[in-house]
């Protein structure tokens, strides 16, 4: 079973992403900011990390940069959840090592399609 780490400071979004992916048969762990996610990520190897960008404590872009620096996450797909207005954020995220992004608002089907795309 593929392991996914879902990071969002918003509980409703986290639950929605978590529920959707679990229902689709993934093993999902949730974290509510970049700092927590970074710790969790180092305790086990995840096949995919999906992270919100705007979060307190550690934002999503810093998280991606930090993850990419870890040997275990060098080639792991890392997706950002951005809004359509966050054009700069996409570039910033790419520069930090993000694989791609999912644009909010999205629905469960769009989320799954993207996840399946990166997990093959």
């Amino acid at each position, binding site marked *: 079973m593929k392991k996914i780490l879902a990071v969002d*400071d918003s*509980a409703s979004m986290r639950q929605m992403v978590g529920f959707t992916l679990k229902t689709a048969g993934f093993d999902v762990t949730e974290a509510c900011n970049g700092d927590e996610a970074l710790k969790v990520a180092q305790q086990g190897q995840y096949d995919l990390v999906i992270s919100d960008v705007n979060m307190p404590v550690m934002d999503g872009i810093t998280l991606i940069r930090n993850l990419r620096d870890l040997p275990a996450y060098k*080639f792991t797909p890392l997706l950002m959840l951005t809004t*359509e207005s966050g054009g700069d954020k996409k570039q910033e995220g790419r520069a930090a090592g993000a694989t791609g992004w999912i644009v909010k608002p999205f*629905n469960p089907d*769009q989320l799954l399609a993207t996840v399946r795309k990166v997990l093959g």
Partner: protein
Amino acid sequence: MDIDLSQFSQVFFEESIEGLAAMEAELLNLDVDNPDDEAINTIFRSAHSIKGGSGTFGFTAVANFTHLLETLLDEIRDGRRKMLPDHVDILLHSVDVLRGMLDALMAETEYSDPKLQELEQRLNEALGADSQTSSEATTDAEPVADTSANQIWRIRFIAGEHIMRCGNDPMLMFNELRDIGSLNVTLLTKEMPALDGYDPEACYLSWELELETDQPQEKIKEAFEWVEDECEISYEQVTTEPAEQEQAEAKTSAVVQTVTSKPQGTAKPKNTDGGSIRVSTEKIDMLINMVGELVITQAMLGQIGQQEEISQESVLMLQQGLEQLASHTRDLQESVMQIRMIPISFAFNRFPRLVRDTSQQLGKKVELIMKGEETELDKTVMEKIVDPMVHLVRNSLDHGLESPEDRVAKGKTETGSITLNAYHQGGNIVIEIIDDGAGLNTEKILNKAVEKGLVSPDEDLSDDAIHQLIFKPGFSTADAVSDLSGRGVGMDVVKRNIHELNGTIDLRSRKDEGSRFTIRLPLTLAILDGQLVRIGDHVYVVPLVSIYESLQVSQDRINRLSDEHELIRLRDEYVPVVKVFKEFGHHAEAQNIKDGLVMVVDNSNEKVGLLVDELLAQQQVVIKNLEDNYTRIPGVSGATILGNGTVALIIDVAGLVNLAGIGHSNEHAA
């Protein structure tokens, strides 16, 4: 996949309301001329989260409105726009509007406040002409596949060297293309370097793809969306059929519209009264720990129970075990109570805004000081104490604090202060509302009380006794001309509300020094400090807070008005007495007042006597709701189970007085 997004709505509402509170608090603290980056970030993040969530869960109106807020905040955050006082004002009003919108969504009603349009307009003006109110939900809609004829695209894809290091894999992109048409892949390897210059983590490949699809070019580009900046990609249309992209763009059967969750209408009615509660994991861990201890004790007791012979030693162990059990049960009870406890900051948080708005309106300078915000109390108690607190703070602002000129004239600082303070004391929470204003106007209150017939003109009253008169029913607030207080809700209502929570309110006021209202509340509504009394064969519980005194009354101090109405003379007062056994229709030893005990209790600031046979112990009792378990009985507020397993009814003094038909309204009718 069929996922009902409405299951996440409640959490979304809760976090949005919290986000709005955070936003409001930061806005109120903000130094407009020199805003703190972190504060702006927090405000932005709240708006941003609400927008993201509302869009995802299908609350389009909220999403559209928060989009405007987010845009403004984003510009301020990036330094593209300077923060103005007007922005703070707009944002604060937006918080109100969003609260209204969320409330309407929770209650599943229509939101129609003209303030929304007004604010949208103000936001658009603040943003300048370039921004529009237009909803992104529609602009964001993906063009849906057009059923135009197949076309052949020749795509040349030269991968960027570092593409793999971002977790991108060209094979996956090709797979995506295979989903929309038939694909022919040719690998070109001529860029491969010699082995000594070869970086195994880099990608040196390029491809030539031939795709036959009925999808527009936009759809093809999507496959490479994430890497288009670092890869070279060219598209060439091989066939000569007319381009169909424009046609596709015209299609707007928005994906977003059809898939974003169930709209509000279909969901089942939800408890909008915050039916859920968030509990910190720490508290839950504590509970689990406690239950663990209980299980161990139970196992230990079980072992003793299995012994065939009871020795001296096992009796000792049994006693120990029972002691442990008692201690764990007590701890467990406390932990369970803790679950319902939330910090009073939830109630305090609304005051900075109230004080800001009100003081502006009144032209007064006020500093709000809040202490003990982390003090915890029962969620239900807190919900019910907010309104009385609002009333008291409004009163202090309106009547207590003087205008800056008056203050200066009195030699005080120009800025007055209102302090909200909370702390625990015994099993109670104490909430104080303190102002350093003019204090209560003793003379004015006395005149008014005389005018209303609450006291006689020749009565000699201390200042404190006069101050207490404001809690009397019928003493309406001040001149009643003010827009703020005096909305027909008097201090008697405040007092009654607090009393309903088994609490008390005290007032101390000194001329030109200020006033201090002290509210004392039980930490929870589930437990009551009670006095047990016996009447005939029945045991009743009277809330301890409402008892003044208990006494035996001799015949000469009893005045009989009629069969139903008897008064006792208590010092200078006449106190009506309720024969409880009569009202509840059972036997009692003391049929006449002189044979029993009269317990003098408070009924909305009036004294009432209850005739009982005997006083028993004072103890904390756990309140059980009668309405849920049986039916409502007038004069009884609930029941409890005593240590010996019998049920005792808890007396509702006001209800009982009504039942007996001797309410103070009768007394003052004349």
